[in-house]
């Protein structure tokens, strides 16, 4: 399917002339059959206002300059690419890491949050709410709020509050309020529910900073645009380093923002795009289309449409849904979404630490696990992995697991 689609398109020399596979949704907010805006009526005008404000800001050179300056001078962009000689040799591949773990606050989440916080200010909002799983988006939101003088409240599942205690403390230190979500599975899905309930009540002065490429239109599109800086840089860096595109581009997928960020830079190339899901939260792999959190997308659910609880060692991927653009890319065969087990992830976490001296976030350890498993089928190939975050936040949890 993928081969067929790609061979039908002239790629390299004509890159500027062909239509990109990167979708720009229309006012219906759709990527193919996925996406949309399934929100309570109360929120519709807010989503429309946000859509208009984002389009306006994104087209405004002053806004873009302000954001680029923050990304450079505050977040530390561009992030470097590190070649993993030791692990690459061991696996028989050429392995490159895009180092989003080196960003300020330790993950890719800051890219989107700085954009959204600037937008919130531009829209005259005084307060932001956010949901968080691993706490990385919460920490990034708290950071941006501190920097830009916004009030910030972060909803986090009670289970995650426990397993990511370090990030909870960081958020509080940064001046944000952290509210444990006590309903349902008490993880990311329920934190999203609570954040949406907050937003329904406070929409007039509050901006909802969603942490991934999910939610109602325009969030999936907007967050992708903010995260596309990863792919744009990585593409240029690959041209310099390799003189060509990598054979494989791989990233972990919770909601899918770091994955779509790096995919966006390679979507019109021959590179295989791999989004690695946790076996216990494989929305694309095991889900069927459904509607929750404002979007139509692949979703783990029962036969009556009750959303199932995800179970993953990694709080950031513990989510039964996925951003709609990933559902679309899967449906047209442009990207693949394999999954790995918690046990493989624990191996991957240790492997990258020991061979390269880089402790990855548990989320990214999923990608290491997939690459390790697939390496026999990729001998001699170049694999670009998005290292979306650093592992410090997971060290306490891993101490328990590894004893």
């Amino acid at each position, binding site marked *: 399917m993928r081969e067929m689609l790609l061979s039908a398109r002239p790629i390299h020399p004509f890159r500027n002339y062909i239509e990109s596979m990167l979708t720009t949704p229309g006012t219906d907010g759709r990527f193919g059959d996925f996406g949309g*805006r399934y*929100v309570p009526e109360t929120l519709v005008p807010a989503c429309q206002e946000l859509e208009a404000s984002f389009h306006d800001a994104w087209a405004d050179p002053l806004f873009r300059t302000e954001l680029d300056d923050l990304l450079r001078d505050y977040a530390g962009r561009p992030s470097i690419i590190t070649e993993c000689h030791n692990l690459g040799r061991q696996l028989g591949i050429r392995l490159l890491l895009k180092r989003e773990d080196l960003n300020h606050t330790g993950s890719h989440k800051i890219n989107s949050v700085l954009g959204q916080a600037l937008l919130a200010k531009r829209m005259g909002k005084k307060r932001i709410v956010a949901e968080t799983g691993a706490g990385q988006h919460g920490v990034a939101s708290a950071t941006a709020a501190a920097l830009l003088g916004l009030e910030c409240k972060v909803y986090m599942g009670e289970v995650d509050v426990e397993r990511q205690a370090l990030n909870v403390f960081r958020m509080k230190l940064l001046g944000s309020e952290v509210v444990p979500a006590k*309903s349902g599975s008490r993880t990311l899905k329920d934190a999203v529910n609570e954040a949406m309930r907050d937003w*329904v009540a406070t929409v007039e002065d509050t901006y909802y900073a969603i942490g991934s490429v999910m939610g109602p239109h325009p969030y999936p599109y907007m967050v992708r645009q903010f995260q596309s800086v990863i792919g744009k840089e990585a593409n240029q860096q690959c041209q310099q380093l390799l003189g060509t595109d990598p054979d494989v581009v791989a990233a972990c997928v919770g909601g899918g923002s770091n994955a779509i960020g790096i995919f966006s830079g390679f979507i019109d190339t021959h590179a295989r795009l791999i989004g690695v899901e946790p076996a216990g939260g494989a929305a694309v792999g095991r889900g069927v289309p459904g*509607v*929750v959190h404002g979007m139509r997308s692949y979703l783990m659910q029962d036969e009556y*449409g009750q959303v199932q609880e995800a179970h993953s060692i990694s709080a950031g991927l513990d989510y039964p849904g996925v951003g709609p653009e990933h559902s679309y890319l899967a449906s047209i065969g442009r990207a693949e979404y394999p999954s790995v087990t918690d046990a493989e992830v624990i191996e991957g976490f240790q492997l990258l630490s020991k061979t390269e001296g880089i402790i990855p976030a548990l989320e990214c350890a999923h990608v290491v696990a997939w690459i390790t498993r697939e390496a026999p089928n990729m001998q001699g190939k170049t694999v670009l992995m998005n290292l979306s975050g650093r592992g410090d936040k997971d060290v306490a949890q891993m101490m328990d697991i590894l004893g």
Partner: protein
Amino acid sequence: MATHTGRLETHLRKQRDAGRKLLVPYITGGFEGWTDAVRAAAANGADAIEIGIPFSDPVMDGPMIQLASEKSLQRGTTPLSIFHELRSIDVGIPLAVMCYYNTVHSAGNERFAHQLVEAGVSAAIIPDMPLEESAQWCVSADAAGIETVMLAAPTAPQERLPRILDRCNGFVYAVGLLGVTGERDELAGTATKLAARLKALTDIPVLIGVGVSNAEQAVEASQTADGVVMGASVMRRLVEGDADAVGRYINDVRSALDSTFAGK
């Protein structure tokens, strides 16, 4: 377009035009004692009843209805088990279901509409299906003769209201406040303001729901609106008490409405 006047709207218009204020309680389907609560509400003066189909992720609901939904799901409730029990209930007033869109989506629009018809349900209220996402459901609902109650919110700009009303049948659900379902100490000022805006534009019954928490607030809301939908305060009676407590409560609200508005 909303083409026909169905059973719910016909009934509500008739009651309203006879000078009565409309009272529509909400009851979570599948919650222990729910069918008795439906009967008790009907026997004590409800004009129609909204049956909630519990959903795993009810983003428009506050703590009380979340709790009721969770408990109902723990008992093994499914849409089909609710429809099955509904077939054995004949309370003589129209029934509507309140459900989140994924419940409809997973059954399929057409199949879900037919399931409602077979269960004797007249209308559907789908709080996470705004106007822009309603087209596919409405085709199936209209074809099956199911009325689609649309919600209007205080945040709606003026130009949006006529488009919502155009697509609405049964009644128009005026969301009383910015926020989720749940009891409040006072009726929000947004409630009657929105109801007045809607009354100026339409003849379809205008009911205020979300945050109408007791008889006094029901009376206050009905000064402007044609009546009220009451959810959390009803479910609290069932969660903490029983169907009789629901019946007594509905009776209190009915009496307050009737004594205030009698002969007007």
